[in-house]
């Protein structure tokens, strides 16, 4: 009576496909899949609500005026809630940084790759070890063995290019994305 692939009616009245599945199995699966899809899509809205909101993203970039920063001076600005170090390097510091390109660096990177203009070094002021803010921005600060920055938490020493030289930190101080909007202004982020 039943053609291949069409439902057959068994003794108890349920329609069964030759492979043994019933219409009810299909409805059960389809309903569950429909409900699960809806729940997952709704769940995404809730999860995404914890991502940065529009007002947080709107503050994701910071403009910094460098006109008043003289060679040898450093300023700290806030970008995305974190300190950014901007140092106006002296010719000696630049020379030292270039010279050390060939020294034994834990995280080798030439100075030229870390700056856009050699006199301006822009770094994220967050130690790559465990997130402390290194010393070295103020003239009175300890600057470590290499004249850059020194992290007081666990003793990481950074050089005049912000590269890790000694201590537990694994990486160089990160260079944030930035661009010179004119000679004396940078936009971070």
């Amino acid at each position, binding site marked *: 009576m039943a053609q291949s692939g069409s439902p057959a009616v068994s003794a108890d009245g349920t329609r069964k496909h030759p492979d043994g599945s019933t219409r009810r199995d299909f409805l059960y699966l389809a309903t569950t899949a429909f409900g699960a899809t809806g729940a997952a899509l709704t769940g995404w*809205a809730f999860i995404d609500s914890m991502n940065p909101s529009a007002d947080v993203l709107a503050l994701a970039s910071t403009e910094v005026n460098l006109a008043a920063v003289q060679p040898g001076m450093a300023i700290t600005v806030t970008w995305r809630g974190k300190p950014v170090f901007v140092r106006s390097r002296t010719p000696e510091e630049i020379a030292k940084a270039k010279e050390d390109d060939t020294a034994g660096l834990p995280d080798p990177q030439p100075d030229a790759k870390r700056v856009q203009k050699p006199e301006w070094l822009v770094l994220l002021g967050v130690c790559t070890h465990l997130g402390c803010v290194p010393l070295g921005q103020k003239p009175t600060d300890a600057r470590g063995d290499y004249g850059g920055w020194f992290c007081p938490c666990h003793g990481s020493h950074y050089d005049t290019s912000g590269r890790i030289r000694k201590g537990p930190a694994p990486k160089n101080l990160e260079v944030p994305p930035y661009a010179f909007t004119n000679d004396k202004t940078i936009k971070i982020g």
Partner: protein
Amino acid sequence: MAKYDYVPSAFRSNPIVKWVDHRLPIFELIDEQLIKYPAPRNLNYMWNFGSLAGICLVIMIVSGIFLAMNYQASTLHAFDSVERIMRDVNYGWLIRYIHMNGASMFFIVVYIHIIRGFYYGSYKAPREILWWLGIVIFLLMMATAFMGYVLPWGQMSFWGATVITNLFSAIPVVGQAIVTWLWGGFSVDNPTLNRFFALHYLMPFVIAGVVLLHLWALHVHGSNNPLGIDAKGPQDKVPFHPYYTVKDALGLGVFLIVFAYFVFFNPYMLGHPDNWIPANPLVTPAHIVPEWYFLPFYAILRAVPDKLGGVLLMFGSIAILFLLPWLDTSRVRSAKFRPAYRLFFWLFIAVCFVLGWAGGQPAEGPALLIGRIATILYFAHFLVFLPLLGWFEKPLPLPSSIAEPVLGGGKMAAAAAMEKA
């Protein structure tokens, strides 16, 4: 627990399940109380609203927790933080619309659930404590909803908080001291907002606790049913799963469609535009009204031209529900077999709607008079009609069992009766 013989579900013989059950019988609990749980075979769609109310509570708690992640309970920032949720937070508008309209949905569902209990006499012995716990949940819901409405710190929030907390000033002698204590100051202000937020966050979990007690009490004697007669044996019952899980799931689907209509197409239909004006302690809106679900009680409050009297009558309108199992003197549960009660039941429903309408009108003229008449009828229902109906009404003959109308009252019902004897 309503014990009756059943075969445990297949998954119970899984060795891991057995290992866990031997130590913490959680699968046994699920199996006995949710899967094989025997429910009357004749439950109609009015019995969907209990589980729907539970789902509403979950929806409110989940959406509320996510709102709390962005809300700031400070008079300086509350209003703006809500606007930030609406404009800047990813899907913040959706979560807030779910929470706002979810409160209304929760009350609709719970009102239907309560009215179901009225119609089918679900409050009668042996379910009085189950009924009381339901009223406790309802009271906690009202407190939670009221405090939640204060949080956006709009004009309606502020003045609603002022008016409702001032209800307590009607208490003789200590009234003013209580109000000052509630406020944590001399007016509704930052300390009030802070504590309302803390309590608004706490209360749903208290509700969840009472819900567990409500379910516990429910599962002692099992659900009432549209016939209002006790189940006489296994032929009167079906396992909860799949019969009522599927029925509840269908109801949930319909409910979510209605809910989604409000959330996506008409989110402010049930709200009040004055709450877009930031709270101003120096100016009261011309016409302040509570949210729709409080309107009948608000009408009762205003019906009495006396401060303490109005407050007492308003709280009395809910307190009287605790006495309902004894005020209703009829032994017959379901209105199906009580023709006279049925009329008064519908009159009562109409009275509730009239009260709701009157509560939304300015307190003057015909609306006030109609509100007063409806208030009298509301209390007369409990204090006059129900006690008398039990004496004067001649109920229709009850079927001998739940299965009888279905199975024709033949051998099975008789056999069950024999078994009992």
